[in-house]
């Protein structure tokens, strides 16, 4: 069955640095991967979507890559800010539903 994994340890970085979060998947390769942001006590909010045949997707300070050889997607936040502190979830687009990773918590120190 499809499985999607994110680093459960929190990522703690200094403001201004680039945050890099990892999402690994096993077995089948998803046609699409999505990334969401979730703040404490709130529902996830969609950020970016990347197709299997796209190497990279950007939106302002956010960048997502998709490496089908490594079975991995990387999510980058450049020039990070304390307001970027949140949990970030990746999700496998399984046609009619999404399979979510458990999320990685990012903490950006001022």
């Amino acid at each position, binding site marked *: 069955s499809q499985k999607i994994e994110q680093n*459960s340890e929190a990522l703690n970085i200094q403001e201004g640095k680039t945050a890099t979060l990892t999402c690994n998947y096993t077995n089948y390769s998803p046609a699409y991967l999505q990334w969401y942001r979730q703040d404490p*006590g709130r*529902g996830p909010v969609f950020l970016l979507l990347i197709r299997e045949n796209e190497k990279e997707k950007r939106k302002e300070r956010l960048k997502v890559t998709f490496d089908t050889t490594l079975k991995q997607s990387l999510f980058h936040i450049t020039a990070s800010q304390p307001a970027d502190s949140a949990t970030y979830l990746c999700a496998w687009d399984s046609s009619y539903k999404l399979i979510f990773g458990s*999320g990685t918590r990012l903490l950006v120190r001022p």
Partner: protein
Amino acid sequence: DVKVTQSSRYLVKRTGEKVFLECVQDMDHENMFWYRQDPGLGLRLIYFSYDVKMKEKGDIPEGYSVSREKKERFSLILESASTNQTSMYLCASSLSGQGARNIQYFGAGTRLSVL
């Protein structure tokens, strides 16, 4: 903007009570979903619906049922609440299809405590 509204932000119920969680979306989305989220376990799909009156079990349907009588409304029912159903419940909706059509829009969540 898509809006998904959950009827309650916080709910406290007693063991054995029947509990209704309501969710309404305003974007004419075909698909609606109910998840629960617990620390360390991530988002787990309880049920989803791809059309009015249609439903499919997710990964953890035991102890829950759902109802979708109208396209915009999807209800989660705990027939007899138990303490292990204390959790954050999240509703989401999406269009039908893959890629951008499968982006899910979430409500703010209902934190349910069963005592």
